[in-house]
């Protein structure tokens, strides 16, 4: 069963040896949901503006695709599916400058 990501481990290389940090994503998810609800009317307005035109054609086309995808139910479901598929993702790169690490748990 899929579950939303809970923690994000982040380590960025630098001159000082840093231990890395744990970000509690589970605390950010309710905030993101609240933000989504607040931004929903704005998205609708942006969608309407983009549909009617007025911007440069290329930007308009890209914006239409992005807004269309995000505003559709399928798009939101796919986005939720994508976020819920991230637990287990790990990128760990070590070189002379240090270690870069992202891990989603």
């Amino acid at each position, binding site marked *: 069963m899929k579950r939303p990501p809970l923690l994000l481990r982040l380590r960025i290389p630098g001159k000082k040896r840093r231990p890395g940090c744990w970000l509690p994503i589970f605390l950010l998810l309710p905030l993101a949901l609240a933000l989504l609800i607040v931004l929903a009317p704005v998205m609708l307005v942006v969608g309407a503006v983009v549909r009617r035109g007025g911007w440069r054609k290329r930007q308009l086309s890209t914006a239409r695709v992005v807004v269309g*995808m995000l505003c559709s139910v399928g798009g939101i479901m796919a986005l939720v599916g*994508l976020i819920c598929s*991230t637990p*287990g993702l790990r990128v760990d790169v*070590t070189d002379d400058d240090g270690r870069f690490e992202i891990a989603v748990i």
Partner: protein
Amino acid sequence: MSESQKKILELLENKKITVDEAQRLLSALRGEEGHHEGHVLRDRTPKPARGKYLRVTVQPDPEHERAGNVDRVNVRVPMSLIRSGMKFSSLLPEEARDKVGGALRDKGIDFDMRNLKPEDFDELIDALSELEVDVRSSDGEMVRVFVE
């Protein structure tokens, strides 16, 4: 060979059905036969193991490692993430798909995104399970791409 299979082949020989139709009938017949044989047959055939993660690793040669080469890459991508990402492409509007198709055709790749179906994604992911790439570079680094 069963009687039904013989009949299908006879129909094909007499050109009463096309090759495609014969193929479809034969596969339907095979499915039916498998169904009749019951769960015993299903239990006997081992299910191919589905990989959970796509791994990309770069490991230095032990000699180079001792000499101070510490470059390492360890990437683990959940297969479900790849599947979810691929599903995004099915949400692309028709005009965007046409543009992608056109750009690919310009590069000499004859690929139509409209032909991609959700079942194809699963098939692609399943095919990835057998992927294994091992490359050893001239400076001894070992690059591995595999599914675990």
